[in-house]
């Protein structure tokens, strides 16, 4: 696999040090920029994703929308979500189309929550990748993810999500969705460059009738390696429920840090306690007692 070239930054549930990838290259952080203001919802990215990753096409049914299906699936990682609504200022309609997929958080909740050693890795370039051969199917990642992204394959009981085409990126190519995008609403490059482009575009939008335009790169998860330009960055929820301030759920953080340490300490002290008790007091010997 070409993603063997990528240097590893973090591994889920991994005791000890993280072995870095073999690549001599120093990797920079990559980023996919999705400019929703120029997306036309053509779904080329959906098909490209399916074809590159070798998943089969499936039967769908009409559901009063242009959206292919209600939700992403374990083998359908990339879905354009359509939402039509009257503008808040009453000046007409907006038909919002948002490409939904893994956001590749800098601080990935899935990885934090994952109990399986090596099932989730984060590369130095920011890609968060699932290794199904190590996945145990517990779906803690689903709980850890503030974007509701990971999906279980019910037959293999392993979880899947967008890999940001780590296999292509490792070989120096852009992700398949970006390659297929006809309008150029998708861009791929270094996080720095994409951030610059996105800021530039939102400034332009701000000057042209979209005062609330902005970049979606939520700090709550340490920033993401998939960022959006939104016409209305103040209300990301209207883009089919993009969370406003996504963070790793507080309970997951509590569970993974203080609670876990409390538990560990408790267990160690428990064992140590009973053993010292044995040494100090010893067993209850009925015969001895009777003699006494």
């Amino acid at each position: 696999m070409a993603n063997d070239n990528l240097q590893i930054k973090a591994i889920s549930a991994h005791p000890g040090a993280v072995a870095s990838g073999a690549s001599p290259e120093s990797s920079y952080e990559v980023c996919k920029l999705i400019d929703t203001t120029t997306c036309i919802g053509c779904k080329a990215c959906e098909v490209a994703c399916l074809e590159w990753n070798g998943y089969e096409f499936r039967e769908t049914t009409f559901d009063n929308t242009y959206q292919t299906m209600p939700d992403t699936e374990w083998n359908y990682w990339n879905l354009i979500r359509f939402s039509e609504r009257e503008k808040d200022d009453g000046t007409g309609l907006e038909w919002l189309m948002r490409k939904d997929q893994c956001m590749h958080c800098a601080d990935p909740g899935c990885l934090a929550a994952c109990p399986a050693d090596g099932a989730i890795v984060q590369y130095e370039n920011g890609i968060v990748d699932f290794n199904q051969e190590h996945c145990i199917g517990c779906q803690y990642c689903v709980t850890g993810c503030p974007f509701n992204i990971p999906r279980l394959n019910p037959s293999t009981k392993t979880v899947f999500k967008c890999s940001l085409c780590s296999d292509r990126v490792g070989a120096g190519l852009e992700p398949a969705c970006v390659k297929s995008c006809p309008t150029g609403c998708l861009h791929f490059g270094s996080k720095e460059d994409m951030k610059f482009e996105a800021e530039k575009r939102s400034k332009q939008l701000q000057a042209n009738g979209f005062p609330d335009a902005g970049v979606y790169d939520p700090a709550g998860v340490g920033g993401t390696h998939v960022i959006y330009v939104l016409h209305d960055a103040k209300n990301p929820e209207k883009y089919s429920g993009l969370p406003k301030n996504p963070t790793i759920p507080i309970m997951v953080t509590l569970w993974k840090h203080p609670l876990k340490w409390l538990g560990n300490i408790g267990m160690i002290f428990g064992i140590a306690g009973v053993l010292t008790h044995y040494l100090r007091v010893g067993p209850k010997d009925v015969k001895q007692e009777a003699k006494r």
Partner: protein
Amino acid sequence: MSTNTTALTEGSVTASGEIVRYSYKERLCHWTNGVTYFFCLCTGLAFYSPYLYWLSAVGGGPVSARMLHPWIGVFFYLAVVWMHTMWKQQMTSIPEDQQWKDKIKDYVENNDSALPPQGRFNAGQKLFYWVMYYGALSLLITGILMWFPEKWRSLHWLMTIVIPLHAVAALFTIGAFIIHLYMGILMVTGGLSGITTGTVSKEWAQHHHRLWYDKIKQGK
């Protein structure tokens, strides 16, 4: 009296003068609980901490451990229910329990003579029982929610609570379990045979469970 321990009834006295502490059914039930709990403990701990991931070997490796854990968990809970049908009455609190609890320090210090006489189960055993009983119930409820997260995907907040709750419930049972194990194997000598072959010595019964012993004698 046959040597077949399956025929022993609780509270009877064997030919050799041993007192039957646990019937076959009780022992079977206990060990069903014990084995299923131990399995869930090991596999659960594997998913609890990366440093205990090796414990998943108990379940045949991480993948099968994760697959078996909920099933065995359900068996564990069923075993708890079974036990409950047998011991529910005997595990309810009696006035002597409070006296015992007041003297817990003496119990811990092996100053047993200071302790009030106890029935078949002392207050500590009862406490352990109820910790495991409610622990199992919590583990079941949280465990089932964790088993099928895709079914309640929209209740994401619930899942974030459920997983730590499962861990907390498990930690409580682990604490209790450590003590149970210690006492059963190391601390209360002479008692282990009660849960294995079923019988204990008269002395042991008299010493640890005077009320129970007296009742047996009266019955005799």
